């Protein structure tokens, strides 16, 4: 399964109004190309911080499900985020890592997530962790986590490749404003 397919499946399994904070690079671009909507916050810079932004949103909106669409390169840049999420225990946070063991947005250079176990790090930081590889597993796990309280991590092992999605052509301040309005609803 390639990233864009995995993102499309994940999006199809969550409610339209569930908030998604997506990591910079191809993850945000794929989400934007799959379904652009105001509850999506595309983080186009500040690599590593999608999970931190998601934590802030989750803590202040405890009745809403907050999804973070993260990448392996992104989370490796901000492993401390797992600690802070683990100790603040947002029950409504689902942290999805699309893991292709590479920095695909910058040319496919390798990361080391195939040599370490991110799942163990997250578990020791109080996450409930699920690791999956296939489309069927992805659908099933997104159904399953509806009745589980977070913080939850879903590691989706994906393959490199696929068409490169277009860049996000919405002004960052507009991305922010419409996201903020969507949170009020």
């Amino acid at each position: 399964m390639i990233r864009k397919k995995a993102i499309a499946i994940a999006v199809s399994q969550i409610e339209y109004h569930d908030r998604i904070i997506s990591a910079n690079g191809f993850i945000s671009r794929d989400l934007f190309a799959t379904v652009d909507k105001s509850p999506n916050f595309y983080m186009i810079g500040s690599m590593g911080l999608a999970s931190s932004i998601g934590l802030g949103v989750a803590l202040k909106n405890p009745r809403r499900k907050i999804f973070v669409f993260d990448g392996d390169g992104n989370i490796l840049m901000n492993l401390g985020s797992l600690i802070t999420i683990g100790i603040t225990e947002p029950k409504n946070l689902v942290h999805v890592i699309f893991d292709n063991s590479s920095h695909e947005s910058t040319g496919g250079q390798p990361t080391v997530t195939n040599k370490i176990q991110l799942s163990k790090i997250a578990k020791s930081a109080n996450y409930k962790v699920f690791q999956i590889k296939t489309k069927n597993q992805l659908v099933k796990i997104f159904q399953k986590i509806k009745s589980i309280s977070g913080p939850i991590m879903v590691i989706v092992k994906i393959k490199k490749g696929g068409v490169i999605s277009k860049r996000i052509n919405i002004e960052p301040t507009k991305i922010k404003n419409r996201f903020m309005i969507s949170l009020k609803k």
Partner: protein
Amino acid sequence: MKEVIQRKIFDYLLKNKIYNFVGVPDSTMKYFIEQGLKCKKVLITTREDEAIGIATGFVLSQSNSLVFMQNAGFANSISTITSLVQLYQIPMIFLIGWRGFLKNDAPEHTKIGKIQPKLLQALSLQSKILNEKNWKKSCDWALTLIKKGKPCALILIRDFID
């Protein structure tokens, strides 16, 4: 800055609806942070840029936030300030401890202490230096700016050597 004023600054900002104090500790503002910890309004993060990310999530949820850090952490955060806070115009107050202000501060603070005003200027991040006389006025200035949607910084000078 005196303990009593640091505590007053915290209380004043809280009273004026700054609900979240997120950051990495600095001894320059020890009593400010302690005051916040007492009323459980402080979240200590692993890094300063992480704190800015969390505060961004708070601000997106209409909850006013301050991020505290030493100037070493401010230097760590420059890319986050330009590509998140300023790019999306996320209003938040930075409270930055100015190490290296005194000439005889520890050597690791010398360089950053020297270039800090220039960094703030290069970033076009508006700032005011707090002192025991102007602190209330400076806090009001910062509160007004974030109401207008603009991030800004309050600087706390490290005025002692330990």
